[in-house]
């Protein structure tokens, strides 16, 4: 028969080797059912206490018990396993750009500029982020909502005002320069761009 210390070490090893929560019933299988559920629960509580001072903790979840790193150590651990920073899709960024540069605009305006339909989800994403909101309605059939950017948007991008966004003439000019560089012979207006970008 196993002593409690050895049983605890086995429980510990089994839980450390499993990234998924392990149900109590599975933990009992470790000992062929020779150790009762109550005893195992007590050993788990002891284990939890033993780990109290460490960067990893033993927690009980709906699916069972598991070891997990403590949240406050994530900044360190994240350096080891950097997550790729999430990125917005091109559709979201273009929509945001249109709202920022052309506000107040309706969804129809955005669609006209983008040349494709704009899903409600895109606008919801930006609204949920607190970067755009409805600033009014246009008095046309359907009274479409007019979107504008918020103070939060400026704060999050580190801008004091929209004027600090790159001026559009400059944007257009770089585009022209680029087009000229790639098509030196022909007159290469920025709008004579290859199709297929849609």
């Amino acid at each position: 028969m196993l002593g409690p210390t050895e049983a605890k070490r086995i429980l510990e090893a089994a839980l450390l080797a499993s990234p998924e929560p392990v149900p109590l019933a599975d933990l009992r299988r470790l000992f062929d059912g020779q150790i009762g559920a109550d005893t195992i629960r007590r050993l788990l509580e002891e284990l939890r206490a033993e780990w109290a001072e460490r960067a990893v903790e033993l927690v009980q979840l709906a699916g069972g018990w598991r070891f997990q790193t403590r949240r406050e150590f994530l900044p360190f651990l994240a350096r080891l396993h950097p997550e790729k920073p999430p990125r917005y899709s091109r559709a979201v960024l273009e929509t945001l750009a249109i709202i920022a540069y052309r506000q107040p605009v309706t969804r129809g305006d955005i669609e006209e500029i983008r040349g494709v339909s704009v899903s409600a989800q895109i606008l919801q994403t930006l609204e949920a982020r607190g970067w755009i909101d409805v600033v009014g309605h246009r008095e046309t059939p359907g009274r479409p909502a007019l979107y504008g950017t918020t103070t939060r948007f400026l704060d999050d991008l580190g801008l004091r005002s929209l004027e600090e966004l790159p001026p559009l003439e400059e944007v257009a000019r770089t585009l022209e320069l680029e087009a000229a560089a790639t098509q030196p012979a022909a007159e290469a207006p920025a709008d004579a761009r290859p199709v297929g970008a849609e």
Partner: protein
Amino acid sequence: MTSAAPVARLYGAPIETLPPDLYIPPDALEVMLEAFQGPLDLLLYLIRRQNMNILDIPMAPLTRQYLDYVELMRRRNLELAAEYLVMAAILMEIKSRMLLPRPPATEAEETADPRAELVRRLLEYEKMKLAARKLDELPQLGRDLFAVAVAVEREAVVRLPQVHARDLAEAWRALLARARLRAHHTVTREALSVREYMSRILRSLRVHRVLEFAELFDPARGIAVLVVTFLALLELAREALVEITQSGAFAPIYVRLADARSH
């Protein structure tokens, strides 16, 4: 650990040794013959079983036993790899060369034992065979032990995409490139701030419903802002987003949302 390897497994039980003669129970024989990895493995088995000196192999008995086994395999309709027949030819060739009288040892090369190459191959194969067993005895991840992998608690931190001003410029650039906007939408620096104030006015009108014209202006912010606010108001009126009313000359001017009536 020398030659104590099980030569075969019969119903899971290792067969360590075989009867000295060739008689083997038919079932066991089949299992055993199939267990040989090839002619070298079979030869090694014969050599080790007979306690032959591998460095001085008696070619005649070895060849005879080898051929007996090959014949047995054939009779049992075991699939006989071509390599077994090639090895039979090699053994017979060596045996016949051993029977030739040795020429006087003039040149070192010519005294080379005809068995040398076979012995080299047998020793090399045996080494690898033992090495394979030792590798299999090493503790193996997933079989004998498990890697530890505790969960990394990161769900709590929802990471939102970062956007920089240049991302927006880039997005706009892509739009320009695609939608031939350049000609139609020349937006100046001023116009942009006008647009910002258009949103700002609309937003405050949503809160206050109706504002007096003067309330929209904050002289403390300087003339530029006053002008921009004024331009924004004109633009909003032009786009029919606000209504500007005045009951008479010099009466207060009121600004309200064009859609305010529906509220």
